[in-house]
């Protein structure tokens, strides 16, 4: 594959793909557009990343930057008349976009699982939690009801729910938000998937429960050796859990680096602005720093130029006409910004 630095978006990002066997999950040049009455709307625009077994990849960005759409398109959960998905999503080298719906069903929950943002509404209110977990087990592993129930109890213990034998027959309304998210995790992990996609798993929970859930996810990942894709808008969560981070803005990947590298050396102006707007424990300023302006709605994305240009303090004329490509700024630290190209990498 020849690399041309001037081709925008994904081409440069595949530098890492030359090494080793097929990664656990590799997303390449993923593009998702939705057909609307006022024409196609691009939600994800040429995003690439890879997840290794046992690794945790964080995807950060503001609301509407395409994080969740990326997650949904991996499991092919987007309805595909309105949505159009292109690029490739390879699970152990196997392109999921080419799989039949039937094959996808076996992958969903069995190989790749997902947990959602809203634990309050992700559980069926009329089924006991044990039944919901057991059903998933039966679905993928053709075992008897008895075995599935035992497995459900085991899973509830795994996610540290006390008195699992009793809790298993309870209904979602009898559980708190944190408990429900634990149940969702149990449900997602019941068939020992190799990849867990967690779409803002802690957003709806209060801070102490958040910490518990994240600790639990970290612990389970270590024990089960899963790859985890953690989607969040919270850099604090990323710092605690991820070993690699992708920063998305308006459907594009603007920066990717190891977590330590990213926090030590944020390169893209957007990442830096995000970090600057985080409240600090010892700050005395009454007002938090913010990024001026709004994320452009997916429909209004400029066809040309850097999507962040309108809000960027470093933007100059070139930013509005040309899209910056991702470039390696040392140690696999990718960023797409013209301002970075002027200075030595």
């Amino acid at each position, binding site marked *: 594959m020849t690399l041309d630095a001037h081709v925008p978006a994904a081409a440069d990002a595949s530098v890492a793909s030359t090494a080793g066997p097929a990664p656990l999950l590799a997303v390449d040049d993923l593009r998702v557009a939705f057909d609307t009455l006022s024409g196609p709307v691009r939600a994800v625009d040429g995003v690439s990343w890879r997840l290794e077994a046992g690794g945790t990849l964080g995807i950060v960005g503001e609301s509407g930057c395409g994080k969740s759409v990326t997650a949904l398109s991996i*499991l092919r*959960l987007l309805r595909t008349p309105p949505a159009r998905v292109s690029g490739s999503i390879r699970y152990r080298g196997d392109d999921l976009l080419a799989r039949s719906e039937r094959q*996808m*069903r*076996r*992958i*969903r*929950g*069995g190989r790749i*699982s*997902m947990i*959602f943002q*809203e634990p309050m*509404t*992700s*559980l*069926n*209110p*009329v*089924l006991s939690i044990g039944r919901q977990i057991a*059903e*998933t087990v039966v*679905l*993928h592993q053709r075992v008897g009801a008895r075995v599935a129930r035992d497995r459900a109890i085991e899973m509830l213990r795994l996610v*540290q*729910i*006390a008195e699992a034998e*009793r809790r298993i027959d309870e209904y979602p309304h*009898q*559980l*708190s*938000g*944190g*408990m429900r998210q634990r149940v*969702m995790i149990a*449900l*997602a992990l*019941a*068939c020992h998937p190799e990849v867990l996609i967690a779409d803002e798993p802690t957003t709806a929970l209060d801070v*102490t*429960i958040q910490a*518990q859930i994240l600790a639990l996810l970290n612990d389970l990942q270590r024990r089960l050796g899963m790859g985890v894709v953690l989607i969040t808008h919270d850099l604090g969560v990323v710092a605690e859990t991820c070993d690699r981070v992708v920063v998305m803005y308006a459907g594009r990947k603007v920066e990717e680096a190891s977590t330590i590298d990213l926090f030590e050396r944020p390169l893209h102006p957007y990442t830096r602005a995000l970090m600057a707007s985080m409240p600090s424990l010892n700050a005395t300023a009454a007002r938090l720093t913010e990024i001026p302006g709004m994320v452009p709605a997916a429909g209004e994305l400029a066809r040309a130029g850097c999507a962040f240009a309108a809000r960027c303090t470093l933007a100059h004329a070139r930013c509005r006409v040309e899209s910056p490509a991702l470039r390696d700024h040392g140690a696999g630290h990718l960023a797409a910004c013209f301002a970075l190209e002027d200075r030595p990498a």
Partner: protein
Amino acid sequence: MPDAELSARPLGVAPIAATPAAIEADAWRAPRGRWLRKHPMLVLGAILLLAMAVVAGLAPWLATHDPQDLDPLARLQPPSLEHRFGTDALGRDVYSRALWGARVSLSVGLAVAVLSGAIGVVLGLVAGFVRPIEGLVMRVMDGLMAIPGILLAIAAMAVTRASLATVIVAITIPEVPRVVRLVRSLALTLREQLYVEAARAVGTRLPAILWRHVLPNMMAPLVVQATFVAASAVLIEAALSFLGVGVPGQTPSWGNMMAEGRNFVAVAFHTILYPGVLLALTVLAINLVGDGLRDALDPRLARQL
């Protein structure tokens, strides 16, 4: 998990040391005690309906005469000890005929509710989940709804032989669209629920999603709708019998009793009074149960009716 214990249960409701059984009993006691006070009309309607069902079920034993027995010497007699509700123009015992008539009314009500419920659920789910077929199904339903139910039932009866089964089918046809519309609208709401998406995300097949996740969650409004369908079916059955296109003439039903009594209203009002009162009470009871259920079961969903 101590935090979970605390947050899952309001403080002070159950002692931490309570046994599972005690907690369960606790959870059940409160609503059960409130049931009658909170929904008196539901309880009243249910008792009335139950009484009617018992009467219909025990008709052969409760009846004092054979409902078909003619007694030309005792025609149009007022209520007496021998004939509790009096006799009709052919000397048949109105009390016994009314009891047997309850069987027809209730079985038609129940059968139509179940049948149109079943057909409506299938068509409604198809319309809600299989986009290409939606237009076809819903337009046919719109067409059916454009024709008055009673006319449609009469037309259906006109092309078949009169029997209890054909009456049930004839009344079911105009009732189906009401269920289909409800089910489809509920399906459109439920298919966007996160737990349905979550079920897809773990690889559940569509039939399983419908059966396990969608159907149970629409039961409350569906049951309420079924009661209204039953009430309307009882009324339509009576109307069909009254018009002479319902159950065969020799089967006593409240409708044909009233039709036969209508010529003698002036001299023997009882021939039309008792079946009329029973019909009204039955429909009232079903409607009370329906209204009560709507309030008692998930009021938020039921309001969409």
